[in-house]
């Protein structure tokens, strides 16, 4: 059930009516309703693996209470370690078993040893990477004494399975969402309208930018027949597509959350305007990066702090290899992570890592040339990394890169009709301009500074018309596969 589908609109309208009219001001009943809706939503995507989600919820609910009872003791440490190992084992089984089997098989065969192993048919449960991370942070933080466990099972289960975030995040921390689930929620007009605006902006990003870019970047297996310039343009457009797809999806999630009275974690802060790779990761998929910063990077960095900058570089590289691998079981993702980790090394050694990047603007409010150059360089570095992210194999990524830097790089790119190109350029310009103007706000259509309701409605109406007239064919969200 995609957010921009008619099924979802019916599902959500029913939920909304029950939530605010029938169960008005009854927090417990609202939570039960949200939980049932979340399980129904999940079951629509993957009903066979719903029992796994419920079982994991119960196990971690119990673990949270047990850890808290003995917090600070050895027993609590053992229990939280058990929780972490169990979570990683489940995630590892579903996502990485076949990867390890085939990788070892290739290794042994390259050493001349014949193996007779088979890979298994394992269905990866949708959203497992997202809900496992929620559960892991829950037990780790309780054992660190950061907060008390949730006693209300329904609120906890709703936190884990909360339908807007279950498929692709944001990965809200327990202390952001659980307290909100325990509070009374009445219809908040200002929050709900802001949510609707954010949904509209998300739909523009997803349906107009991402889905139309998909038609141009879907070069796939045919890449050897394309010119270098076509591939380069496809590569750069894919970065825009990826941003529009994932951040557009997230805008819809956060907007839906607001309609139900929740403030979910911000996941993007205009990453296209990042001025170096560290800045980029502070702005892209923030909830994942901050999760790994807290639970992987910081402990490693503390452990290796005597090694100075090299200790930090090593911690970052390991963290990024994990970020890469989190996306899926493939060497392309591992190398993607390693690539980003290595891009940090010069920043750490030069001290650039510790400087806050400021956006310097000129007379008209646009970035100064130096700032723009840094942004473009970061954009190129990210785009090249995404070649690995997209490729089916390392060989394919390498060949793709080789094809870009061939003599055909100077040919005219053959990517679509001229008219389409002009329209898309116009929409991309709108996206960049709106993001630029609202870069310090929570989302592109926050509109605090527009007082005239005529102007506001004109903007809504234009966006709706653009989405209706130019929305591309409904593509699945890229991040659903993770």
């Amino acid at each position, binding site marked *: 059930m995609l957010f921009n589908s008619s099924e979802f609109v019916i599902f959500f309208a029913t939920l909304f009516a029950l939530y605010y009219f029938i169960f008005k001001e009854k927090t417990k009943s609202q939570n039960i309703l949200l939980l049932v809706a979340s399980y129904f939503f999940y079951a629509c995507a993957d009903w066979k693996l719903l029992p796994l989600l419920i079982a994991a919820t119960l196990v971690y609910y119990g673990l949270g209470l047990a850890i808290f009872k003995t917090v600070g003791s050895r027993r609590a440490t053992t229990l939280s370690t058990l929780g972490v190992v169990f979570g990683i084992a489940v995630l590892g089984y579903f996502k990485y078993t076949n990867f390890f089997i085939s990788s070892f098989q290739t290794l042994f065969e390259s050493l001349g040893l014949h193996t007779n192993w088979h890979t298994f048919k394992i269905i990866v449960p949708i959203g497992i990477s997202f809900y496992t991370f929620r559960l892991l942070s829950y037990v780790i933080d309780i054992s*660190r004494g950061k907060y008390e466990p949730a006693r209300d099972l329904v609120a906890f289960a709703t936190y884990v399975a909360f339908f807007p975030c279950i498929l692709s995040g944001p990965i809200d921390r327990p202390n952001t969402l659980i307290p909100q689930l325990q509070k009374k929620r009445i219809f908040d007009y200002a929050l709900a309208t802001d949510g609707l605006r954010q949904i509209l902006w998300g739909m523009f990003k997803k349906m107009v930018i991402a889905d139309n870019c998909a038609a141009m970047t879907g070069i796939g297996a045919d890449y050897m027949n394309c010119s270098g310039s076509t591939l380069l343009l496809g590569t750069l457009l894919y970065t825009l597509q990826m941003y529009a797809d994932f951040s557009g999806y997230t805008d819809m999630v956060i907007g839906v959350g607001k309609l139900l009275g929740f403030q979910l974690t911000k996941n993007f802060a205009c990453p296209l305007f990042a001025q170096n790779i560290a800045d980029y990761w502070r702005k892209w998929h923030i909830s994942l990066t901050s999760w790994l910063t807290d639970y992987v990077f910081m402990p490693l960095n503390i452990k290796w702090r005597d090694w100075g900058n090299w200790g930090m570089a090593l911690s970052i590289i390991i963290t990024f290899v994990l970020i890469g691998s989190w996306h899926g079981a493939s060497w392309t993702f591992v190398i993607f992570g390693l690539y980003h980790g290595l891009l940090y090394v010069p920043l750490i050694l030069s001290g650039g*890592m510790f400087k806050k990047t400021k956006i310097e603007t000129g007379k008209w409010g646009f970035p100064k040339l130096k700032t723009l150059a840094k942004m473009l360089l970061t954009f190129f570095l990210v785009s090249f990394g995404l070649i690995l992210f997209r490729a089916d194999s390392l060989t394919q990524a390498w060949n793709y890169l080789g094809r870009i830097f061939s003599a055909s790089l100077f040919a005219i790119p053959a990517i679509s009709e001229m008219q389409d190109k002009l329209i898309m350029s116009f929409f991309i310009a709108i996206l960049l301009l709106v993001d630029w103007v609202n870069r310090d706000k929570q989302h592109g259509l926050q509109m605090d500074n527009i007082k005239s309701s005529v102007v506001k409605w004109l903007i809504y109406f234009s966006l709706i018309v653009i989405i209706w007239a130019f929305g591309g064919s409904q593509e699945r969200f890229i991040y659903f596969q993770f």
Partner: protein
Amino acid sequence: MDKIQSIFRTVLKHDDLILTENLSANDVQGWDSLSHMLLISEIESALNIKFKLKDLNKMKQVGDLVDIVLSKLS
């Protein structure tokens, strides 16, 4: 405390920062996970002490840090 305060001022580049017991990372611009690590290493080398991972997890505000430092020095 004065020594810790001067380390905070140098690392966070805040010349007029005044440490109070209840001050936490959320209150100070630039006090993020990275600069926190720098603060920790600087305090360790200046006072010749070594924090444990457990100690670091306990530090929620400046008061906690000072308590832990005092217990290490005594």
